[in-house]
């Protein structure tokens, strides 16, 4: 399965770190979005995107709103969504799971955790 990642984060630092980590894991097909609204526009413009990695706390349209919006759209109902966020409170995690994120990573993350979660998601998809 050829993967095209959409990395969504309002922090340019985090976008670069996630993108670098993906490249280190051998995934070169990566595009970036600055918030949830931008992510929706990028997804609409590029049907090849098949994996979303998103932050939660973003202006304009949060990662949770993006997840809910994607899950309510038949076209993206099953697209893998990996939440990478600083929010580590139990209620937040449950809220994210209820919104149907595929998995959840707390910042700061390690490349091992990123790989593990991507592999888990892909194993469930296949």
């Amino acid at each position, binding site marked *: 399965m050829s993967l095209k990642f959409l990395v969504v*984060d309002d*922090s*340019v*630092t*985090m976008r*670069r*770190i996630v993108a*670098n*980590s993906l490249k*280190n894991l051998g995934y070169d097909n990566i595009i970036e979005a600055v918030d949830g609204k931008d992510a929706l526009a990028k997804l609409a413009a590029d049907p090849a995107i098949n994996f979303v990695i998103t932050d*939660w*706390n*973003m*202006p*304009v349209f*949060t990662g949770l709103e993006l997840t809910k919006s994607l899950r309510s759209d038949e076209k993206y109902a099953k697209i893998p969504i990996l939440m990478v*966020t*600083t*929010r*580590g*409170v*139990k209620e937040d*995690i*449950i809220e994210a*799971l209820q919104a149907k994120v595929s*998995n*959840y*990573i*707390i*910042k*700061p*993350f*390690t*490349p091992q*955790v990123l790989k593990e979660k991507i592999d888990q998601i892909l194993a469930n998809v296949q």
Partner: protein
Amino acid sequence: MKNLNMSQLFEKLNDVKSLFIYGQKIIPVLQSLVDFMQETVPLLENINHSIADSTSKIPRATDQINNVTNATELATTEILDLVDVISNNLSTIDNSLKDITEKEKIKSSVIEKLKALLPDNAEAMQLFQEYKDNDVTISQIEKLSEVFPKIQNDTYNITLSLQVQDITSQQLAAVNHLIESVQTKLASLIHDIDDTNLKEVQSSENYSTPEGATFDPNASYDKSGDRQDMIDEIIQSENQKASQDEIDKLFS
């Protein structure tokens, strides 16, 4: 009838007398209250002025915090750029060393072939041996090649550590939000004391908070992995619950 009226009059006069006596007693108390009020008013004005002054400084504090966030983001981007340059340079050097290793292997092979062509030439054999004894290029390159992945890994770890910038920027945004809340409270306090000062404070509001900015006030730079373990446990437990619910639905 006349006596009764006089008696009432004296009764009333006695009441008035009591009132005067009471007044004489209370006047010093009232005087001290007035004195106290006169002393307190400048103090209250002073407090009011201090609150107004502190409140007017708050926008500058939030501006400075925003400047810190912007500066650290810029610096982090510069570090990331440099790390990218170092990584690219390392890759270029690593590739060059691989090419040199291949060429050295070809050179060694050529020497061996030459040795095979001149087996009876003792002088040539001695020179070949001397060449071989001094040829340390491949072993040196191999040693360098072992170091390269370590340097690449270290530079990558620098990149990962820069996640701290995103986390601290959220912490600073939370502090900003707190300061702004304090300013709102102070402004309303000033409004209660003096309307004019509120206008002064509002006119000095030249700070800017990003529209719709969101942040996690609990963001922390914790590299222990404990929080990720806790999250994994919650996810597992919630998934198990969901699975059980599905099974229960099937049997109900």
